[in-house]
């Protein structure tokens, strides 16, 4: 499995960037000729992860969100979404459906959506240092020649 293409985004944790991030990732992944459903799944998972950085990682303070997307010659899409925010003390609990620390009208379904829509979700986090979520999805292989 070789990485055939890669892109990086570095954005502020403004909620207006939730839309930008998912659309930018989808535009980059489009070169693998994904189905509409695959693209919808990726956009939804990216939206959840970026929203987590904004709502939880930086808790409405301003910080930076770093996104790296890698495409492989086997049709895999790997998306790393990292913040340098507060970190998660109990990852297992944070990933449970309906668990949320945010209150208000957060449904507590972010990780459940990511896990349902992607093939693999891994979370690394350190309290006080930040969180990295890695999302992987294997697309049905229709890879075009890369120019």
């Amino acid at each position: 499995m070789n990485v055939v293409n890669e892109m990086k985004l570095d954005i502020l944790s403004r909620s207006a960037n939730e839309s930008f991030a998912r659309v930018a990732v989808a535009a980059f992944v489009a070169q693998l000729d994904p189905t509409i459903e695959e693209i919808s799944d990726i956009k939804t998972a990216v939206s959840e992860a970026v929203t987590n950085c904004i709502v939880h990682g930086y808790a409405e303070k301003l910080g930076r969100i770093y996104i790296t997307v890698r495409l492989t010659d086997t049709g895999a899409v790997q998306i790393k979404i990292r913040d340098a925010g507060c970190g998660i003390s109990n990852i297992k609990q944070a990933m449970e459906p309906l668990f949320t620390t945010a209150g208000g009208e957060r449904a507590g379904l972010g990780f459940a959506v990511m896990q349902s829509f992607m093939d693999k979700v891994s979370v690394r986090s350190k309290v006080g240092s930040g969180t990295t979520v890695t999302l992987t999805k294997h697309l049905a292989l229709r890879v075009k020649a890369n120019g």
Partner: protein
Amino acid sequence: MPVRIETNGEVVTAYLEGELDHHSAKAIREEVDMAIFKDSPTLLVLDFRDITFMDSSGIGLIMGRYRVMSGLGGEVHVANPSPQIAKVMKLSGLDRLAQINPAMKGSKAQ
């Protein structure tokens, strides 16, 4: 504002437009709640035919309106979600709280 409200006093229908995420949810919530508190309807219909994207923030929005309408003794129906939106709704178990009508007659949703 990304919401168009139609009401006959008993039924408030909110036609939501655009993308429903954490960023846009607040403005939509405020518009819908204003219509609910003005009319105290027995039924709130949230129509998703013109929503092009939704993540779990939309589930929070629907559940929040369910709570408001329950407090008034009323119900919430969800109309015309696209397949992507229906997938997020199904995952959340939302169909236990609100009636979901996937493709109402005359809908342009596929």
